[in-house]
């Protein structure tokens, strides 16, 4: 493979990896701490993109639209948690799967009613529409670099939140012994609502960032949701650090899986399988994932 193509694809892989991480961080916390399988996580990815795509022409500011879209998705997440999900924590996983699958259908219909069935487009903001030559002779889109930077920054922020703050301590404490956290005077339900809303905002951020790169449509959350589950299983359920590492690996494998086979004259269908083969291999070697959460 030519070196320039290799470098470009590496950046693409990293950029897809951090997008997956934004999705996986919330999902792994919800599953690891609340023991809740939430299939509707992809809906917040979709909502984030729709919100931002609608807001950009209104506000005229990409940054402003992102902030509002995240706040909007977090608010919808808050409402969803309080109205629907709270009653599901104590139920078994099958009930959760069925109920949150129902939520997917609900949000799909809702989006169809509000925005119509046709995909909408979101432009790359002017400020980031250019290309830069990080490597001479290989101009790379600035916007994709921005996505990469945002993903790494959010990763750093989450690391700080979870390892350095009271909230993070309580999140980890709740993962190991939720009854005791309550018995020491912390309203664990409120903590869960907060974590859930944060997860929704991160999913929405992933959706917003993906908006200008792909299309904003009703199915956009489904494909990424499946890959997100692969990420959190590989990373170790409940581990944000594991989610980060696994997201980068999956992003790379998925990206190179698309181009490598053709380089060697193989069928491209291998690409579709690559990350699942990876997951099976990791689980064979480490059944609880790369970074099993303590407790």
């Amino acid at each position, binding site marked *: 493979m030519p070196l320039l193509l290799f470098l470009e694809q590496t950046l693409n892989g990293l950029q897809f990896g951090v997008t997956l991480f934004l999705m996986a961080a919330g999902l792994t916390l919800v599953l690891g701490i609340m023991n809740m399988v939430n299939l509707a996580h992809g809906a917040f990815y979709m909502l984030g993109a729709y919100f931002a795509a609608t807001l950009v022409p209104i506000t005229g500011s990409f940054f402003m639209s992102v902030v509002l879209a995240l706040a909007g998705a977090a608010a919808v997440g808050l409402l969803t948690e309080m109205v629907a999900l709270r009653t599901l924590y104590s139920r078994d996983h099958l009930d959760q799967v069925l109920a949150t699958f129902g939520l997917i259908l609900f949000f799909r219909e809702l989006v169809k009613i509000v925005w119509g069935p046709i995909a909408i487009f979101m432009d790359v903001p002017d400020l980031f529409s250019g290309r830069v030559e990080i490597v001479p002779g290989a101009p790379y889109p600035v916007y994709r670099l921005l996505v990469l930077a945002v993903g790494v920054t959010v990763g750093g922020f989450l690391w700080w939140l979870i390892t350095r703050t009271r909230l993070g301590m309580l999140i*980890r404490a709740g993962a190991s012994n939720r009854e005791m956290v*309550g018995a020491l005077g912390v309203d664990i339900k409120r903590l869960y609502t907060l974590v859930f809303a944060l997860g929704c905002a991160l999913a929405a951020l992933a959706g917003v960032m993906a908006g200008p790169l792909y299309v904003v449509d009703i199915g956009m959350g489904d494909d990424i949701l499946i890959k997100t589950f692969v990420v959190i299983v590989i990373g170790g359920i409940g581990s944000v650090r594991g989610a980060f590492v696994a997201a980068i690996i999956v992003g790379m494998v998925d990206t190179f899986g698309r181009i490598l086979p053709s380089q060697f004259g193989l069928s491209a269908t291998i690409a579709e399988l690559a990350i699942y083969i990876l997951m099976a291999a990791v689980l064979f070697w480490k059944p609880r994932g790369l970074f099993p959460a303590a407790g």
Partner: protein
Amino acid sequence: MLEVRGLEAAYGASQVLFGLDLTIGAGEVISLLGRNGMGKTTTVRSILGLLRPRGGAITFAGSAIAGLPAYRVAQAGIGLVPEGRQIFPNLSVHENLVATARPPRAGTSGEAWTLERLYALFPRLAERQANMGNQLSGGEQQMLAIGRALMTNPRLLILDEATEGLAPLIRAEIWRVLAALKQTGQSILVIDKNVEALSRIADRHYILEKGRIAWSGDSAALRGDAALRGRYLGV
């Protein structure tokens, strides 16, 4: 401070507490005695709101707390050192202490608990600050569980089997700490099997037998009545 009247509690269909009465005054140290399975832990769980009482009334510092969720009861000022210690294994000693720490409620007297004051009480914990909960010995875990409860600045401290399974030296250390806490005016409800140590530190005792209070009285009465101890405590 705490008043329990006619408390009834059950696990599903099997009733464990049958109308239990108990009071603790401000600054008092009270013991709750009884053989295995008599309902001591169930009493504590009912007071804390970890188990919803079937009946009866619980008043703490003037307000009814029966049926409230555990976090509200804890916020009202009850600090729990649970049976089995239950420290957070994936948090460091320092984090175990600060994660759920709370300043004293407005209007309460007495010196507030801070990390410095706590580490002065348990120098061992100061040395182990950076270690994870699951790297501690049983005795250190017990000190951590007590420290964690104190950091919520409770008006009433409840200890459920705080010396169980510990080496004699560590037990002595825990009794020393409880005596020091009593000196500061801390109200304490302590559940333990060591009648000798309890009769030295507690003001009054309750003996629980099959979910009811079978006897209550002061230390002199408990010490003087060997038949009583033989009958209800098997010692």
